[in-house]
């Protein structure tokens, strides 16, 4: 069984779907228990993978490779390396928390959780696949299950083809076209990502076109300015447990896809177009920060905050140029920072979203004091303060280190350093934004924190505490995380260097 941990991780939710189909709709508790057990087991599997992951070894680990089709040489190929391990970890955390947040809901439980588990399979498969056909399959499963998850559960979208539907179709078509070009543009018509990356047989013009197609597709999912409007409208309309999935992991598909398909398979285009990533990253940072300041709704603010954080990720990814100009350290620092930032954003956004669910802004003044829940009143203000600190990246928190890495990497490279300098303004604006929220949350509120915990949200505190713990631990001991990805990032930079020498 331990040899097939990755398959188990991918297909376990499907087994869960099978069981859910057999259970009657009214047994909501059993349905929820099974679903949360599945995500819990997944989390345990991820711990097993993390524990057994050799941090000194380059290349893929836990590989599962077998033939799927002969004539088209499509393989069933799963593997884990430093690049995707954090995504599967983040996915399992996000899904586990999302289902806990969903726990008290009793509307459309069965159909929601069936699609929820399908989405889980799609995401796990997407991050672990090393075959382009499988990548496409799981990407499709992910995007279309996400769409159905939203329309099944959300009544506000009635009679309207939800904006996310357009985004999904357009993004998927661009990515599909890009992947088809990747498959049929290489000399051996290979679907294997490793083979393609070692052969690098594309012409320069072909690489640029394919990279741009993939970039547009993934940019829509990121979302990058000006394709961000779907994210803001989704956040305001959707419940917190879906928002956790969207902001926690879905918007990270863009970064992963760009890295796995763009950087590894199209190194020439990556080097040539890396300044473009820097420009777009900087625009995202400044635009996101400015918009976040002006927001009066915490949910909207989180949306723009996420757009800004995506900007940092892009800035970090732009440092890949360092591999081509012999500044390895800058590239390694920047890319590691970007990947660390992805994980950190995933954790912080969970807490912010839960806070936004607890603090509907207009209700803060009406909160009444309750004497019975003293224990909560002592913990909760601390959580709020820590979250806000982590949000703007106070030293000692993981976000500080990751955003610093992105900026330090970028500032060492000529051509990209200017973007790093401009991005510092974004950090200042972000701090200002969070201070504003301090003011809103604490000045309007003079009562006891206990009362904000309605019966349905009491369990949030047990979700918030471990996540805060992760943010603090990673802020103090970032090496726990960085050691996971170091070797893979170094290999990527070497690949780029090798190509630039050629």
């Amino acid at each position, binding site marked *: 069984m331990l040899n097939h941990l990755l398959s188990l991780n991918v297909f376990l939710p499907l087994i869960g779907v099978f069981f859910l189909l057999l259970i009657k*709709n009214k047994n909501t508790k059993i349905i929820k228990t099974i679903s949360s057990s599945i995500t819990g087991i997944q989390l345990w599997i991820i711990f097993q993978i993390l524990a057994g992951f050799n941090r000194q070894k380059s290349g893929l680990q836990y590989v599962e490779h077998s033939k799927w*089709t002969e004539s088209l040489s499509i393989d069933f190929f799963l593997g884990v390396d430093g690049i995707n391990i954090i995504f599967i970890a983040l996915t399992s955390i996000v899904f586990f928390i999302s289902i806990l947040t969903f726990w008290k809901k009793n509307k459309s439980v069965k159909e929601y959780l069936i699609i929820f588990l399908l989405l889980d399979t799609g995401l796990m498969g997407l991050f672990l696949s090393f075959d382009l056909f499988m990548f*496409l399959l799981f990407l499709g499963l992910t995007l279309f299950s996400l769409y159905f998850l939203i329309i099944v559960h959300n009544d506000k*979208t009635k009679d309207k083809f939800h904006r996310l539907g357009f985004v999904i*179709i357009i993004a998927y078509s661009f990515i*599909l076209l890009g992947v*088809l070009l990747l498959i049929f543009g290489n000399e051996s018509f290979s679907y294997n990502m490793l083979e393609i990356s070692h052969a690098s047989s594309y012409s320069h013009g072909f690489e640029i076109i394919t990279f741009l197609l993939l970039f547009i597709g993934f940019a829509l999912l990121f979302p990058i300015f000006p394709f961000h409007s779907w994210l803001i409208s989704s956040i305001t309309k959707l419940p917190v447990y879906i928002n956790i999935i969207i902001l926690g992991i879905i918007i990270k598909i863009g970064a992963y896809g760009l890295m796995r398909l763009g950087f590894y398979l199209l190194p020439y285009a990556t080097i040539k177009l890396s300044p473009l990533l820097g420009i777009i990253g900087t625009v995202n940072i400044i635009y996101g920060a400015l918009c976040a300041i002006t927001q009066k709704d915490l949910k909207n603010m989180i949306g723009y905050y996420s757009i800004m954080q995506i900007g940092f990720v892009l800035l970090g990814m732009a440092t890949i140029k360092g591999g081509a100009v012999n500044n390895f350290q800058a590239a390694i620092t920047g890319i590691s920072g970007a990947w660390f930032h992805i994980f950190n954003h995933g954790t912080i956004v969970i807490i912010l979203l839960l806070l936004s669910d607890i603090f509907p802004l207009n209700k803060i003044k009406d909160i009444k004091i309750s004497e019975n829940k003293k224990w909560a009143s002592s913990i909760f203000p601390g959580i709020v303060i820590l979250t806000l600190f982590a949000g703007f990246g106070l030293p000692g928190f993981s976000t500080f280190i990751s955003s610093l890495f992105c900026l330090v990497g970028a500032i060492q490279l000529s051509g990209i350093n200017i973007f790093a300098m401009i991005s510092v303004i974004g950090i200042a604006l972000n701090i200002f934004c969070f201070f504003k929220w301090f003011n809103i949350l604490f000045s309007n509120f003079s009562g006891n924190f206990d009362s904000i915990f309605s019966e349905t949200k009491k369990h949030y505190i047990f979700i918030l505490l471990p996540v805060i713990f992760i943010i603090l631990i990673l802020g103090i001991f970032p090496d726990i995380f960085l050691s996971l990805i170091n070797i893979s990032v170094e290999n990527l930079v070497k690949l780029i260097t090798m190509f630039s020498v050629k």
Partner: protein
Amino acid sequence: MNNFLSLNYFIPEIELCLIAIIIYYSGQNNIKKTRLEKITLIGYVGILASLFFFQSSYSHQGFHHLIVINSLTFLFKFFLIVAGILSFLLYNFYNKHVPSSDAENHFYSIVLILGGFLLISANNLILIFLAIEIIFISVFFLLINEEQNELKTKYLNISISGIISSLIILLTFIFIYGLANTLNLQKICETLIQNSIPETSVILILLMVFIGIGINIVSIIKYYSLKNFNNSYINILVPIVPIIAGFGVGFRIILTIWNMTDYFENNLLALKFALGVIALLVLTIATLLSIIYKKGSRIVKMNVIAHLGFVILGLSVFSMQSFSVALFYLITFLISYIGVIICTGYDQGFKIKISKKGNITLASFGKILFLLSLVSVPFTIGFSSKFALFALLISEGSFHYWFVVVGLINSILMLYVVMRMLHKKITNRRKIENFSKKLPLLILIMGLIIFQFYLAIFWESVVRLLESYLNISG
């Protein structure tokens, strides 16, 4: 082998004629409903058995003056019989029985299948023409018989399209006869090669045949009755039998051309291009029309026509692999379509229904799944077949890249149209109080769903199997 009296060639066809006659006389004598059902069912099973017994054993081609029997014709005839049995079952599940109408419906269905059988196997120009007319007329009467009170202009339109199509085919056949001086298809091919008849005229003839048969099939699909979901059996029988029969003869023609590649030395590329362009035109027009429509039934109709375009696109590559992929595409499309029709028939429409307890009904789930399969969403057979088709076109290179781009844009538009429709249906779900359970149909739907997932994963083995089938026939 070529003895005209060797009747074993014709046994399934003769059997079909006999059953049609028996049903006709049963109707005349107002026979009991159950007895009529038994006769029809036994007839179908008998035809299936004799098809296996008499026509599947030809490992290689069996030529005759009138018909050809090989593994390919056997495969297509098998599909026809399956469609016939399915439509018969659905007729008995869904329809209110009127004794006189029952017999007429079964009679026309059998005649329609007979026409399909003849067209698939026909080795003679007159027989091909006759088969096309039989199919067309039986479809016409089936539709009229179902909607006697609604004789509208659409039937006039069908007749006009049918007449135009028949005229085109007739003119083409006269032209062929003038060139080759024989009616036998095999001899026509030999004469073409021996007498060095210009390739351009042959290509023109082929395109005329495709257009003639195409107009017929498209007009049937456009006007058939999908709006009345009580008629699930018609929704299966009417578009599927002409499609299977049309592609049956189409595949045979294409395989013959493929065997004559020496003859087409210079103009094969032009033929490929022309076929590809026809395919793109068909699928683009159908897709664009589907954007205008809001009704589920019309969208599905246009989707069916667009899929025919994709199958022709696969055929236009002219290689054994492409034929197998096109055949696979045809099969997957038919499965998805049948799935949609059975599920819509069960739910009496495209509405998504949930039971009193809040569960989504199996039929509604199946409907969503098969509709998604029709627009090639991953993990459905539609995706596997379209991927195989695009892979094939891209590996062919040159102008086929552009075919892929146009095909891809059309697929995306169709995806948008169906997702838009599904969005509405899912958000406006209907709760049903009395959830009637028709167990055999539910088992059928479940079986189709499982089969579709199986094909979606192990599609390559099916493509290979089809390739071996075609190799024997080619």
